[in-house]
C-alpha cells in the first residue's frame, strides 16, 4: 500500500548572515565608558572618549575562546553525565603594524610610561618610553560591521597584555610588527557583544 512520498527539503540558508571584513580594535583605561548606541559605529566617538585606536594591522584581529572542560563520569555509563567548565580563556590577538611608542608599550604589557619633552632652546622635542613589568589592565572593544550593516561591538571590560612579542627588523621582507595578545581577566558575564539592528524611530 503506497504511503506519502518521501521528500528531502533542507531549511533555507541566509547568505546575508555570512559576514567578512576587518575589525576595529580600541583600547582604553579600565572603566572607560563606551559611546552611546547611536555612535557605536562612529570612530571619533570612541577616540573622543579616550579610546585609542591601535591602527593598521598585519593580518586582522583574531578572537579566540578556548574553554577547557572536565567530563563528569560514572562507572555505569560510558558517556559523561555532565561537563563542567574548568577554565575559559578569551584572548584578542593581532599584529600591530604601526610602530608607535604607544603600540610598543601596548604590546609589551601596557606598563610603561611615555614622557614627552617639548622642543625648546637646545632641547629637541622627544618622547621616551620607560618600560615596566608592572602590567596595567585595560578595556578593549572590537568593532565590526554586522549583518545589518551597522556596528557590532565585542566589549571586554578588563584585559591584560601579556603575550610573547617578537619583532623582526628586515630590510625589505616585511614591516616591523608588534604582536599583541590581550587576555580577558574579568568575569565572563561582564563581557558583552552588542549588535545594532535598526535605526532609531525618531
Amino acid at each position: 500500500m503506497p504511503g506519502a512520498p518521501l521528500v528531502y527539503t533542507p531549511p533555507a540558508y541566509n547568505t546575508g548572515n555570512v559576514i567578512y571584513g576587518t575589525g576595529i580594535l580600541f583600547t582604553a583605561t579600565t572603566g572607560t565608558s563606551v559611546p552611546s548606541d547611536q555612535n557605536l559605529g562612529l570612530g571619533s566617538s570612541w577616540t573622543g572618549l579616550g579610546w585609542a585606536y591601535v591602527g593598521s594591522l598585519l593580518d586582522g584581529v583574531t578572537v579566540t575562546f578556548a574553554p577547557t572542560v572536565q567530563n563528569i563520569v560514572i562507572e555505569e555509563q560510558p558517556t559523561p553525565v555532565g561537563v563542567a567548565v574548568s577554565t575559559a580563556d578569551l584572548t584578542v590577538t593581532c599584529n600591530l603594524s604601526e610602530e608607535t611608542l604607544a603600540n610598543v608599550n601596548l604590546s609589551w604589557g601596557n606598563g610603561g610610561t611615555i614622557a614627552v619633552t617639548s622642543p625648546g632652546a637646545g632641547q629637541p622635542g622627544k618622547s621616551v618610553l620607560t618600560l615596566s613589568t608592572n602590567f596595567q589592565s585595560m578595556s578593549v572593544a572590537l568593532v565590526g560591521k554586522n549583518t545589518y550593516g551597522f556596528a557590532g561591538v565585542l566589549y571586554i571590560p578588563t584585559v591584560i597584555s601579556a603575550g610573547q612579542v617578537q619583532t623582526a627588523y628586515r630590510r625589505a621582507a616585511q614591516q616591523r610588527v608588534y604582536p599583541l595578545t590581550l587576555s580577558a581577566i574579568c568575569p565572563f558575564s561582564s563581557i558583552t557583544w552588542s549588535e545594532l539592528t535598526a535605526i532609531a524611530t525618531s
Partner: protein
Amino acid sequence: MTEAPQDQSGRAAELEAELAKIRAGAVKGARVLMRIAEGSPHSAITFAGVTVGTDPTPVPAHVAPALAEAAATAGVQLIQTDTEA
C-alpha cells in the same frame, strides 16, 4: 569668517583641554587632579591610557597611585592638585 592662525592654535588648545576633561569624565569612578610640576622639562606623560599635561588633568583614582610611581621611575615630576568627587 577666517580666523588668524594663532587664534586657531589657541582654539585648538582650548578644545584639547576640553577633550581631556571629557575623556577623563568618561572613566567611571572618583578622580584626582594631577599635572606636571612647574619647571619640569616634560610637557606630558602617558600611562595606562591616561595622559597628564601641564594643566590639572583628571585622573581615575584607581590609576593615580600607579601613575605617580611610574612617573617617578621615568623621572617625571607629577603633583596632585586636588580630588574630584
